[in-house]
């Protein structure tokens, strides 16, 4: 919403600076997005393009001769596609300084002399439109300076309004808020309309068929007007808020729109057939041509304004070409109506047509200000275009929309806002905002809410009005004592931090990735379900929801490899989403933590050679991670998944936690990766459960331990876990720990043999162990291994 400060000052006498006004409005909820102070644009004058030919050396440029009222015509090179001979334009002559310190100089452009620039609206800060040069009305006088056409002493405010405030979409609306904030009078224009003796209702009638879509429809008739150029005061006002002057009648209705906020539409009466206007719903596939010359196919349920034969306007959105006011128009039907906000929003959305009128109707106009708006616009038209206004308004308003009543309790105001506000102050504010006090007693006031405030329906809404006019900054912040409610705060959250700390400690970098992905990436998840899809994706690249954190992580690995990284260790924590008919949302979300290792795990340095990631790097990370979390045994079982070369279910203390594996070559190929990539993904909730278990503390032994190394020679197809099972299964409670210290193949072993060496540690918390008893245990282990696995002791 554009507000001109000069225009605004017609309705309120403010002595504050534009900056102060903008600050006050912003704080009260009418956010001022930008302030543009008027610029005289010295050197910019009206010119007429006398000649326009193609530039000999450039396809998109034109060579123009422009008359700017000086003796000699100026040669100007222009790049706009809409430039042509005969147009009245604005020319920045040599020496002009345009915004951005852009100085116009005499120049040669592709070999042709150019002495000035023909300006677009954007270059003159009149609007954001940069589509070609600005074209002035034909009557514009050649040589007149910019400041004669535009109000250069003005300041333009651009307001970012929230959708609940249709009342502020006008100069009077904004002035009303200011009048409450500053406690100043609102000066509404007074209207004196002289009517002819002829009764309007004798000539015309209005019928409403679609009473939900259009609760009120009213018209006035003016005869014998003369279409022409608007007076300067009017075109300047409209120009100042970025609206182009068209003719006196259209300008008058736009003026009232910007002044008062109620859209008004004018029909050329002589183009309507019959003597009745009816308002109905469109039928399916009905076609109309709107004022902008576009043919539009309607769906059902769009409100149409019709004469006896045909639609003449899309109610509340845009008029039709067939009844447009043109230079020949002599008699006018002027419409002011109230349309249902929901209907206008739907139609406007379906048509993709958003107009100044639809923007206001869809948020809610005042159904009860129609008389005033009609009288105001008619009085202006008569003043600038002549004609007589027929007597009376032809008004169809079957059921009046009444002001709603609200009980406002003084106590409630104070308790919601948290400070004492006097009753007289409350009444002053509400009075300025045009709320009526209907009755009052000790505790409460009964209020009538003006119908231009559809957002105020309840007591709390009125309290907000009081609070925002007082200003939130004037409410003292409380030092409310904030006492913890719970003694076990945020366990899962601190566990989440711990999990991340561990992975960071192992050398992983955390990433965040887009959880939406194209189907081709989703497929890499290796999930057997069908993907959960967005029905209206931004693009097909963001259609599927992640079923695994793997695809996007692989993408990130590839991103970094493509930037000369050769060691990438990443992790991410987030939800994966798969279909689930039984859940209320139709999906199942599981919180996962996942990590990926690619390239060097130990980057080489001057002391050590680098080592590339392999299966055992991955397994080591998973084992260490789960051990740190508190699992005592971690096992892995092989399963098959097309996205992985080898995939393993990860089991910690007999609970399934997730999976790990090496990414398959076909998956790697999607990103042209030529290195081995390893990945694991674990369910966070299972990890939290383990982390919240108490630690079982045991005192370390005071007695020395005894160590033994045993090397077995076994068949080389034997998996170490079978041998390990025999060791851990030994009937003793003295074996405290073991580890495999070497696996060897080669001479002097036979080809089908390997040796595996275990380092065993024995101890007791009760006593010093005897060498002999340990020898016995080892001997029995060796015996069992020999019997069941044919394992021999290596000499």
């Amino acid at each position, binding site marked *: 919403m554009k507000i001109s400060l000069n225009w605004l000052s017609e309705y309120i006498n403010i002595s504050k600076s534009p900056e102060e006004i903008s600050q006050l409005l912003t704080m009260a909820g009418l956010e001022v997005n930008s302030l543009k102070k008027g610029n005289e644009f010295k050197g910019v004058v009206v010119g007429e393009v006398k000649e326009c030919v193609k530039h000999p050396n450039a396809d998109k440029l034109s060579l123009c001769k422009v008359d700017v009222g000086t003796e000699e015509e100026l040669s100007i090179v222009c790049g706009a596609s809409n430039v042509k001979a005969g147009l009245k334009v604005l020319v920045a002559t040599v020496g002009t300084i345009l915004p951005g310190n852009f100085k116009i100089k005499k120049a040669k452009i592709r070999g042709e002399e150019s002495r000035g620039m023909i300006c677009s609206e954007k270059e003159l800060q009149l609007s954001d439109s940069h589509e070609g040069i600005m074209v002035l009305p034909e009557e514009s006088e050649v040589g007149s300076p910019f400041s004669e056409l535009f109000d250069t002493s003005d300041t333009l405010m651009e307001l970012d309004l929230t959708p609940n405030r249709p009342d502020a979409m006008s100069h009077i609306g904004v002035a009303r808020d200011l009048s409450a904030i500053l406690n100043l009078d609102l000066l509404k224009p007074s209207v004196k309309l002289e009517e002819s003796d002829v009764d309007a209702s004798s000539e015309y009638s209005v019928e409403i068929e679609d009473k939900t879509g259009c609760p009120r429809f009213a018209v006035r008739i003016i005869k014998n007007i003369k279409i022409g150029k608007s007076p300067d005061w009017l075109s300047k006002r409209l120009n100042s808020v970025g609206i182009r002057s068209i003719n006196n009648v259209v300008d008058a209705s736009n003026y009232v729109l910007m002044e008062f906020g109620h859209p008004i539409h004018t029909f050329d009466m002589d183009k309507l057939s019959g003597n009745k206007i009816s308002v109905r719903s469109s039928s399916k596939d009905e076609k109309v041509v709107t004022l902008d010359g576009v043919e539009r196919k309607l769906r059902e349920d769009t409100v149409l304004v019709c004469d006896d034969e045909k639609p003449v306007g899309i109610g509340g959105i845009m008029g039709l070409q067939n009844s447009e006011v043109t230079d020949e128009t002599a008699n006018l039907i002027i419409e002011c109506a109230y349309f249902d906000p929901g209907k206008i929003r739907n139609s406007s959305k379906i048509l993709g047509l958003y107009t100044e009128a639809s923007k206001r109707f869809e948020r809610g106009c005042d159904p009860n200000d129609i008389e005033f708006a009609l009288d105001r616009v008619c009085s202006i038209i008569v003043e600038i275009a002549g004609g007589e206004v027929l007597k009376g308004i032809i008004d169809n308003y079957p059921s009046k929309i009444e002001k709603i009543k609200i009980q406002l309790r003084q106590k409630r105001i104070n308790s919601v806002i948290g400070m004492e506000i006097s009753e007289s102050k409350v009444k002053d504010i509400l009075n300025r905002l045009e709320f009526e006090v209907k009755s009052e007693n000790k505790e409460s006031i009964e209020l009538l809410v003006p119908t231009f405030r559809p957002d105020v329906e309840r007591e709390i809404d009125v309290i907000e009005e009081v609070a925002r006019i007082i200003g939130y*900054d004037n409410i003292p912040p409380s030092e409310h004592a904030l006492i913890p409610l719970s003694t076990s705060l945020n366990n899962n959250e601190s566990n989440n931090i711990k999990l991340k700390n561990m992975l960071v400690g192992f050398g992983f970098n955390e990433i965040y990735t887009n959880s939406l992905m194209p189907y081709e990436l989703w497929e890499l998840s290796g999930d057997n379900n069908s993907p959960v*899809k967005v029905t*209206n994706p931004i693009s097909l690249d963001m259609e599927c*929801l992640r079923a695994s954190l793997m695809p996007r992580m692989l993408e990130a690995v590839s991103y970094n490899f493509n930037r000369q990284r050769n060691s990438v260790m990443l992790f991410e924590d987030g939800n994966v989403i798969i279909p689930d008919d039984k859940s209320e949302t139709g999906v199942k979300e599981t919180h996962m933590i996942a990590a990926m290792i690619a390239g060097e795990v130990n980057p080489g340095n001057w002391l050590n050679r680098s080592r590339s990631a392999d299966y055992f790097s991955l397994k080591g990370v998973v084992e260490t991670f789960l051990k740190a979390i508190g699992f005592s045994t971690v096992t892995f079982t092989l399963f098959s998944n097309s996205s992985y070369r080898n995939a393993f279910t990860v089991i910690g203390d007999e609970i399934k936690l997730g999976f790990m594996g090496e990414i398959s070559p076909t998956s790697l190929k999607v990103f042209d990766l030529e290195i081995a990539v390893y990945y694991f993904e674990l369910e966070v909730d299972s990890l939290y459960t383990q982390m919240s278990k108490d630690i079982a503390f045991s005192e370390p032994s005071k007695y020395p331990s005894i160590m033994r190394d045993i090397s077995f020679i076994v068949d080389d197809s034997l998996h170490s876990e079978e041998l390990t099972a025999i060791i851990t299964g030994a009937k003793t409670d003295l074996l405290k720990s073991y580890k495999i210290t070497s696996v060897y193949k080669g001479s002097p072993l036979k080809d089908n043999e390997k040796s595996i060496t275990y380092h065993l540690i024995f101890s007791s918390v009760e006593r010093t162990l005897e060498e002999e008893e340990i020898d016995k245990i080892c001997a029995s282990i060796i015996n069992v291994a020999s019997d069941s696995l044919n394992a021999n002791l290596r000499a």
Partner: protein
Amino acid sequence: MTLPNIVNLRKEFDSDLKNSNNSSSVEALRIKYLGRNGVISSLMESMKDLPNEEKPAFGKTVNDLKNYFTVNYDAALKKANSKNKSSPPPDFDHTLPGVELPLGRKHPLTIVWEEMLDIFTRMGFEVARGPEVETEYYNFSALNFPDNHPARDMQDTLYITDNTMLRTHTSPVQIRTMLSTTPPVRVIVPGRVYRNEAISARSYCVFNQIEGLYIDKGVSLADLKGTLISFAKQLLGSSVKTRFRASYFPFTEPSAEMDVSCIICDGKGCRVCKYTGWVELLGSGMVDPNVLRNVGYDPEVYSGFAWGLGIERTTMMKYGIKDIRFFYDGDLRILEQF
């Protein structure tokens, strides 16, 4: 053994001591004089052959000699050791780099979230989380969005089915939390939210929000201000200035946006704050009575406030990051700066 013999031993020791200038010669000195088969040991050994009356005098002499040896040996050892430290072997290049340990880092969004979590935990807030796919009821209806509110449009919301969608804010968790507990309620809610927006430097279709909710008896707008001002000062520094502007959200009434003085220019005006000196930090307001009613709380008894902010926006503000896409590229050159 006679006394002159002792004197000779002393002389011999002195001359050996003179030549003991490194740790190995000092060690040799110890072995020769103080070792198990050294001079002192053999003197003590020879004492048992002496007549008893001579033993005390001899013992004292030997003891004095032992003390003399020990004191001088200790000094020589200290000297040799200190020499050792100050002059490493010439081929030891201590300027070569050390062996690096792998170093990972948390994502900047996590760093900022953990900071916020810390602040609100100290204020007594608990964390609640909720699903990313939500129903129309939790995402809109229960939060007092009218049926035809523009936010429900396909233009803003990514739908999964006609009535389920990717949540557009973390506010549905307010409803889920209130439905499952009784007041007082004090929670913060972090999580991913989704908007139907093309990806650009300023916007991303996925981002992270943190939502807060506080419901109790007698909570007012003044409490909202007190809590959020304290949060802003803890997060951005105690010198940060704040202001509250009237605004509009369907689920709060009154609604307010909280601005903080621009931390780039300290409120003087720069490009980041569009020369206003202020940047928006969060949206907030008093929970709308309709929302309280929807979860079965009596708005005449309970009141409260809620707020929400984008973690990406706040992180960008805090570190002066200009492109939101940096957060989602997984670019190690960026991540390793945090």
